[in-house]
């Protein structure tokens, strides 16, 4: 069983590598995401320009967060909505629960919100006896399976259609039926969830953007579940994090240009909606109340730190899809809410280095994440900075620390370093097997558990050979 603990990344990942169903699902997801994004970007004249526009829009906002939040609040109030500031995950959960209890709510429908995953909102609401229904199809599937999401935009990406069919048979008492086709599964979920949408007392959604100049929140979906959640119940609660703020609609637009293309390979998702306050007096529909809860959870501090660039993240998932580590082990192995490269930076920042320090090491620094990131976040550099903090706080393994310190000591002393190199080549010569191609190592370590140590053909390092040659020259 994969453990929901970021410190267990190594055993988790080894287990994930052996899970053939997971491997099938991951391989399919990877080729799907990559191909769609590539096509969408090829259709744009100058994607680099769109990226720059989006980054500039986000940076303008990050440079001015407190004022923008005030402006957002002012405009949201003017439209009849209410802003709540949540410093911690518990604060956010309490605010939601207070609203639900005041409205005597029983059924809550939810659109996809990574912030609510971050605060474990569902657990808090269920403990208070509320009936919480996730409505994004992927989130609904993993809610039935009692699992956390394994991808920030495709939460059930690790499930095959057979696994989904099994879940539906178990949870929907609908008798004998054909669930072999994906369309049948989608249709069944539609029927089941339609009833819940209409019965819900409160709808909770996330937000992709908070627009300060208008007091609007924007939700991007393909299913339309976000809109139904926001429109049908008498109360709409939005859970969003601080860095979702942008100055105005044009800046929001700049981010939308790169979001859909990077996430699902769409120039524009099926539904993008800007909501500004609750139902107006003359309107026929819409919620009676609208609450926007803005979560900080350490983000104000991150903004002042060397990790500020991480707050440019728009949760498109491109870094996950292109990461050779993520695409081999999936999201659950990370044991954290946010997986992949962005998660390996965010988890230690949000949950503490003690909890998250292994994740920044789970990267070869191949740099593909930074290459595909539409917001230009230097992910490998941030991962390296976290490794530096891990080392400073002595959370790295003692063995590695000693080896690397000794190696560094040698590497600043050329005489000793080159003596050590000679010792290494000499020892390697002794360890060569009969064929002369590999070394026989009397112990098993990280390198040779699944690999051989190829033998070096020479017993003398290059530098010594070279110096001898030079001496022989007239």
């Amino acid at each position, binding site marked *: 069983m994969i453990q929901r603990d970021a410190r267990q990344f190594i055993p988790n990942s080894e287990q994930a590598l052996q899970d053939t169903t997971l491997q099938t699902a991951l391989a399919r997801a990877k080729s799907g995401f990559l191909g769609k994004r590539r096509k969408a970007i090829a259709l744009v004249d100058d994607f680099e320009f769109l990226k720059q526009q989006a980054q500039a829009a986000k940076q303008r906002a990050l440079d001015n967060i407190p004022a923008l939040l005030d402006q957002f609040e002012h405009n949201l109030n003017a439209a009849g909505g209410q802003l709540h500031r949540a410093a911690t995950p518990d604060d956010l959960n309490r605010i939601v629960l207070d609203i639900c209890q005041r409205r005597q709510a029983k059924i809550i429908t939810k659109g996809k919100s990574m912030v609510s995953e971050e605060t474990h909102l569902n657990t808090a609401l269920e403990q208070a006896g509320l009936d919480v229904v996730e409505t994004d199809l992927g989130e609904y599937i993993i809610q039935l399976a009692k699992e956390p999401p394994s991808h920030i935009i495709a939460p059930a990406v690790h499930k095959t259609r057979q696994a989904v069919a099994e879940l539906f048979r178990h949870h929907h008492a609908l008798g004998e039926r054909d669930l072999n086709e994906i369309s049948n599964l989608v249709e069944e979920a539609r029927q089941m969830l339609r009833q819940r949408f209409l019965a819900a007392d409160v709808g909770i959604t996330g937000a992709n953007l908070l627009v300060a100049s208008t007091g609007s929140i924007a939700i991007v979906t393909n299913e339309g579940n976000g809109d139904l959640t926001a429109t049908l119940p008498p109360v709409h609660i939005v859970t969003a994090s601080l860095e979702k703020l942008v100055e105005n609609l044009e800046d929001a637009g700049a981010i939308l240009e790169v979001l859909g293309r990077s996430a699902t390979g769409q120039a524009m998702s*099926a539904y993008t909606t800007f909501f500004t306050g609750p139902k*107006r007096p003359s309107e026929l529909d819409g919620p009676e109340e609208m609450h926007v809860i803005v979560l900080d959870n350490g983000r104000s501090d991150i903004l002042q730190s060397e990790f500020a660039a991480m707050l440019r993240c728009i949760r498109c998932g491109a870094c996950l899809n292109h990461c050779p580590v993520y695409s081999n082990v999936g999201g659950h192995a990370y044991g954290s809410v946010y997986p992949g490269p962005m998660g390996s930076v965010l988890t230690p920042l949000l949950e503490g280095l003690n909890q998250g320090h292994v994740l920044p090491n789970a990267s070869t620094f191949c740099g593909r994440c930074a290459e595909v990131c539409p917001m230009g976040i230097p992910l490998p550099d941030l991962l390296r900075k976290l490794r530096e903090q891990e080392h400073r706080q002595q959370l790295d393994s003692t063995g590695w620390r000693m080896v690397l310190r000794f190696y560094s000591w040698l590497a600043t002393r050329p005489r000793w370093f080159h003596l050590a190199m000679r010792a290494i080549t000499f020892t390697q010569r002794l360890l060569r097997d009969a064929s002369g191609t590999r070394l026989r190592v009397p112990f098993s370590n990280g390198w040779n558990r699944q690999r051989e140590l190829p033998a070096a053909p020479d017993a003398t390092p290059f530098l010594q050979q070279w110096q001898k040659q030079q001496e022989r020259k007239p």
Partner: protein
Amino acid sequence: MNTVERFIETLTANAAHVSCIRQLDEAIPLIERFMQEKALPPRLHLSPALQREWPVSNGITLSHGTTDGTHKLCASRAWAGIADTGTLVLLSGPDNPTRLNFLPDYHLVFLRKDQIVADKKAIWQKLEQQGALPRAVNFISGPSRTADIEQTIALGAHGPRFLWVFVEG
């Protein structure tokens, strides 16, 4: 290619159906034939905005207002169309209940040619000029879809399975 042609092309690529009509009454026989082909009851639910301008259509039973999900076919009026992404923009208001955009199986949207703009840039300016925004500004680019199971696109996840856009003028 002009803006209208581009709009039709991109919206069609987004799996929407597009019909060009000179004026509203040309839509009636098309809708009637569609209802027959799909064996749908001849009932159409209109937004108040459309209801006011709807011509006589004896073959179809009309209703209007917002919806509780029992109306299979709903029709709304759009505020703008965006050519480069194949997107409709609908504004909520007393005349345009938003439930019509999401609850029916079939969503019919009426749009005049002169409401189609090249890209979103013009839309942001138009919206900012409006001052306070309506409660909901819906950008709709095709029918409801999901790829949450095996990355395979299926239409009609929660919202309309079928989006039919009538371009007038």
